[in-house]
């Protein structure tokens, strides 16, 4: 008992991984359900096959045989029994393999058949963050954000995947399987969340130094909340009204920030780094690296390479009294 208890504990530990945050087995959408179902069918069928095989092997190993049997002697009755057994085994193998192939094919058809969705997103993988553009028929309703995708619950959303530098892979385990983002071509993927919630996604193709810190959030919410979020994201940044944040804005606009970042409604129009128009409304900065707090924003600006070594955000020259206003300004871009 003393040895069994810890063993049992260790064996049951991996089961904890089946729940929650970024788990393919905690399916929250049709595509992920299809995949999780496949996983469990394969595990149970192949597990049974493995157990049966091991049992047969054990039986045959433990079987007594006569002491001086002639290896070449044949007995017609034994021969017939063996033929029947082997035929049945081959038949069962064929049924299993064909059955599983059929299942896999059916699941793939379900995965790659695209329903017409109301919402189309363009997701561009970049070293090391995700650029997200919400497409719309009206050009004035198109907007760009980064690393945080909001989707309405229960609706299919089409994602067009592209990459700007190297191959990345879009993976939100709770909602769908992986799909590569490849420079120079476009892959399409459909996601749907059946329940409201926050699901974490991650780049699943090694893409360089900070591959591990290339995360994103998918936030599935009720249609009304989503529409409210979207109309807010479309709007430009509200100009700050208190003096400290106004000073922060001046700092932002006079420093190298504007070479890469955009804040709609100001002169900052860089397009090669995350759009900061509503950065304060996002839950994380640095592609899922740090929670969005004033302290974290300041830390990220002062020493990006301490947080995420090799990131393309440079260390810039700031006077000590410029840091706080700048962090306050960015934090307030809700």
């Amino acid at each position, binding site marked *: 008992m003393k040895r069994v208890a810890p063993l049992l504990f260790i064996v049951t530990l991996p089961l904890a991984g089946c729940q929650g945050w970024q788990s393919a087995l905690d399916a929250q959408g049709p595509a992920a359900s299809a995949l999780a179902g496949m996983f469990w069918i394969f595990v149970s069928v192949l597990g049974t096959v493995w157990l049966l095989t091991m049992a047969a092997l054990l039986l045959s190993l433990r079987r007594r045989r006569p002491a001086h049997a002639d290896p070449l002697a044949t007995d017609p009755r034994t021969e017939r029994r063996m033929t029947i057994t082997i035929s049945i085994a081959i038949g069962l193998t064929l049924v299993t393999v064909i059955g599983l192939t059929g299942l896999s094919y059916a699941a793939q058809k379900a995965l790659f058949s695209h329903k017409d969705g109301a919402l189309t997103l363009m997701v561009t993988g970049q070293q090391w963050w995700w650029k997200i553009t919400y497409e719309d028929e009206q050009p004035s309703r198109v907007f760009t954000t980064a690393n945080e995708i909001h989707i309405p619950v229960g609706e299919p959303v089409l994602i067009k995947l592209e990459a700007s530098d190297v191959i990345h892979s879009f993976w939100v385990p709770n909602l769908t399987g992986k799909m590569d983002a490849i420079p120079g071509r476009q892959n399409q993927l459909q996601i749907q969340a059946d329940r409201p919630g926050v699901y974490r996604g991650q780049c699943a193709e090694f893409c360089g130094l900070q591959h591990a810190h290339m995360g994103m959030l998918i936030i599935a919410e009720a249609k009304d909340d989503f529409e409210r979020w979207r109309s807010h994201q479309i709007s430009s940044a509200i100009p700050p009204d208190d003096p400290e944040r106004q000073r922060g804005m001046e700092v932002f606009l006079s420093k190298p920030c504007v070479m890469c970042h955009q804040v709609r409604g100001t002169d900052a129009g860089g397009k090669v780094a995350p759009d900061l128009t509503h950065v304060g409304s996002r839950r994380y900065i640095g592609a899922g690296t740090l929670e969005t707090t004033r302290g974290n924003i300041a830390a990220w600006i002062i020493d990006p390479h301490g947080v995420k070594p*090799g990131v393309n955000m440079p260390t810039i020259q700031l006077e000590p009294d410029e840091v706080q206003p700048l962090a306050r300004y960015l934090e307030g871009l809700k």
Partner: protein
Amino acid sequence: MRTLLILTLVAFTLAACEREDREYRSNPVSAESNEKIALAPLSPGPGGPTEQRSGLGKDYEENAYHISQGQRFYVWFNCNGCHANGGGDSGPALMDDRWIYGGQIENIVQTIREGRPNGMPSFRGKIPDDQIWQIAAYIRSMGRNVPKAAAPGRKDDLSPGPAEQRRPPGEVIDGGQVSPSAQMPQ
């Protein structure tokens, strides 16, 4: 004895693992490297004009990482808007051997930082110092004025010519013709 030999050989292969040092984190305290580059050979008094080179240039132009970062920023900061892929457009060509304001990396850093007459803007305070050095190192690689091993081997986009690595080593001739933007009617 044989084991020792094999172990030594294995240890030798390990030595090849480190190709170069990559410095991601620039010094946050120092402002900008202090270059004093004279553009004219004339100066009053004996001894010629003062020249001060910080020696940083070698660290940048012999480092493949810095050069490839420079290649990225060259497009990000719209250098190609005027200089195209190095062949020049409204700005002078960068891949030839003529350098109006000098072709050493320090001269190029100065050119980017200070700007030059007839259209080159000053990027002081807009591009951090280490990135200016990286861009300058990449520009040096366009005419293959950097070691072959450090020059970029590919581009992210379509390229009209061979990759920098495959170009023949270039030379630097200081003093060039007037820039294309200056020849246009003002």
